[in-house]
């Protein structure tokens, strides 16, 4: 329901990126709860913990130490409890191969990290709104693909 804030989780090892990301959400009109983790292992531990309220959208960096984004993506999509989370890949890579590969592995959104803050806000807001429509409306989640 829209009156409740949307739960957002970000997994990124870069501290600056995490800060920018949180600031961008604070400036958006949409009510959100943003939680961040620093690497893939931490992410999977967090998602699997019983007390965790699962995020509506997960923003996943591809290049992370210990466990990278692709491994996390595979693990999440293979897990019954987690496989319904909308996943947005949040990466510096713009290679077509990466994009097709992540989509094929079950990512819903591919975001090439924008270089300026205004675009970042735009992209994040569009992602959240679209993901929200997919949760609230009987759209086929399998077909949820979005690229920036």
């Amino acid at each position: 329901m829209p009156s409740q804030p949307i739960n957002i989780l970000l997994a990124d090892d870069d501290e600056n990126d995490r800060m920018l990301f949180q600031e961008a959400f604070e400036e958006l009109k949409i009510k959100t709860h943003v939680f961040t983790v620093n690497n893939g292992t931490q992410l999977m531990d967090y998602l699997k913990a019983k007390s965790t309220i699962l995020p509506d959208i997960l923003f996943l960096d591809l290049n992370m130490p210990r466990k990278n984004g692709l491994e996390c993506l595979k693990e999440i999509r293979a897990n019954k409890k987690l496989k319904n989370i909308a996943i947005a890949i949040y990466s510096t890579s713009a290679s077509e191969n990466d994009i097709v590969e992540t989509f094929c592995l079950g990512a819903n959104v591919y975001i090439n990290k924008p270089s300026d803050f205004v675009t970042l806000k735009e992209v994040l807001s569009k992602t959240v709104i679209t993901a929200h429509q997919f949760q609230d409306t009987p759209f086929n989640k399998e077909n949820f693909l979005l690229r920036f």
Partner: protein
Amino acid sequence: MRNNIKSCWRTYLYDLLIAIKQLFYICIKNMKIYIKYDLNAVCKKILQEQLEKLKLKYSLLDFNEVEINGALSATKLKQLNTALNNYSIQIVESSKSILIQKIKDEIREMVYGEGETTRLKTSLWLGAKFKKPYKYLSSIFTEVTFTTIEKFIILQKVERSKELIIANILNFSEIASLLNYSSTAHFSVQFKNTTGLTPSAFQYIIKTKEHNPTKL
């Protein structure tokens, strides 16, 4: 006498054997049963049970509308909500959410129906349908969904076109004309603007995803 005992013993042994055999079956063979169910009937049943538990007088109007006869106290409403939440059923409290749901349903019907409504101007048609000014409808819609009715219609059309692309019966220009786009280019541009992908890129990704979901 002796014979009698013997036969008695025999039947006993026989029973024992059968019992062991049955036990064996229970332990060793996991039985698989298949079920089918009618979701609407299940939901209705759950609703009825929970409403009766709280001793409420009610009538089921539609499959997602219940009328409570008499006043419903706040505590009762809360109790009902928690009881239904156990089954992942939510009470859509405000009339706003219901209105939005109905608008979405109308839009869906318009996009899926191949009738005349598609050609009408949205604002006129929706306003007439709900007997409310379009401005009012659109402001409530935006307030709750963070998006506009126009954008939602585009999203719904794009979702429909995705289904058509996957079904792989029509080509892009046929899809464009079915969904009332003025040209294939117009359709492609709107698809790209909404999803970031061209229709053919989308088709390629879905095909690859289907063919080797595990390989990658």
